[in-house]
């Protein structure tokens, strides 16, 4: 068995297209997932049951089903109810974003609950309403504590983006598959894809470790 990476390097442009696709869906899911997660997380924390109940159902459902099932549901099942087709990007982005929203909602909720009640009392004593206290006093402190968990979520989203290949969205793994089948070089093609992901993600993981350590020292 001789390794020959030339056939992979000859297809660098295909891998670049894949990398752009991966970054594209990653960016969409990161923004959509983490911001929807904040809304759901606040809903989970709300006292009004018609806010809290749907938020809880959302979190439980999306946390307790596999994300690949969600993606395939959006791609194959949802179009039956809609008068239009759903693109691979839309289906994958919907699945990954909603899944990440459910997981990050729990991070936001935990972060907000970790703030001492005295901070709420203090804000109220200054005449702040619930929204003002949340925005100016509670969230800024909670966000600091949540950063490591949220960067971990971002890493998970990056890894999950490979599932989009199951509905033939053009991203790195999909391009690796293409190169492997055109050149009969699965060893080199999949090894290259794995190395690219490792190179992308390893610094992010190390950064999270540093954040965790710093947070532990400051609290």
């Amino acid at each position, binding site marked *: *068995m001789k390794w020959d990476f030339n056939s992979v390097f000859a297809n660098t442009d295909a891998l670049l297209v894949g990398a752009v696709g991966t970054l594209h869906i990653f960016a969409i899911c990161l923004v959509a997932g983490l911001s929807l997660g904040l809304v759901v997380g606040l809903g989970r924390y709300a006292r009004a049951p018609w806010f809290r109940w749907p938020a809880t159902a959302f979190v*439980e*459902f999306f*946390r*307790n*089903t*596999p*994300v*690949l*099932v*969600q993606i*395939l*549901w959006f791609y*194959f*099942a*949802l179009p*039956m*109810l*809609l*008068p239009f087709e759903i693109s691979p990007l839309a289906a994958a982005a919907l699945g990954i974003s909603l899944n990440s929203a459910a997981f990050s909602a729990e991070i936001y909720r935990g972060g907000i609950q970790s703030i001492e009640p005295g901070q709420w009392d203090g804000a109220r004593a200054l005449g702040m309403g619930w929204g003002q206290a949340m925005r100016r006093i509670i969230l800024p402190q909670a966000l600091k504590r949540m950063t490591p968990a949220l960067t971990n979520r971002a*890493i998970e989203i*990056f*890894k*999950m*983006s*490979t*599932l989009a*290949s*199951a509905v033939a969205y053009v991203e790195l*793994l999909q391009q*690796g*598959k293409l190169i*492997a089948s055109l050149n009969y070089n*699965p*060893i080199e*093609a*999949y*090894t290259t*894809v*794995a190395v690219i*992901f*490792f190179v992308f*993600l*390893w610094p992010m*993981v190390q950064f999270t470790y540093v954040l965790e350590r710093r947070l532990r020292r400051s609290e």
Partner: protein
Amino acid sequence: MSYHWDFTPVLANAPLLAEGLVNTLKVTGVSLGCGLAIGLALALMRLSRHRLASWPAGFVIEVFRTTPPLVQLFWFFFALPLIVGIEMTPFLAACVTFSIQSAAFFAEVFRAGIQSIERGQWDGARAIGMTHGQALQRIILPQAVKRMIPAFMERAIELMKTTTLVATIAYADLLFAANELSQKSFRPLETYTVVALIYFFVIFLASQLARLLELRLARSGESTVH
């Protein structure tokens, strides 16, 4: 647009889905068992003072924690058989991938658990004449494992969700059964909805069980690691 729901083709093929669920549980069970064993070995290697043991373990843990599971699965299914020259079945590829992948995560749980045990326990074991291995086996691990239970449960549930990836290499798990059934019956909406609900009930049940265990551990005053 009104859609006419019809669940009869799905219900008629319930045995196909049941078989898929059994296969899902099979991959989960095998990977969980192997993952725990390999994970303990990796953790002990990583905690070892010898570089020759700790460095390779650290490498395996980092690689399998930082690369996407689907890339790992494809590598083991398409690339590995060509390197070692063996026939690879989807089941074997899935078990190997998910065993090593969960071992990498379990290793970190084991490590945190072992490190959470007070030094005095080691000293005490040595004082009554135990070797390192004996102390680990009789004193440290029994205490550490109890603290790790919630983290293990959480990981086992993650593992079950991850096993759906085997459908992409045509192993007949529950998701793959759904793909087949939806193509056969032209009822993707009903099929995928039912399958999503099956996954939900199984995983939700496991999550509730994990939560209950964690509560009980917390009430008994046991600290836990994550």
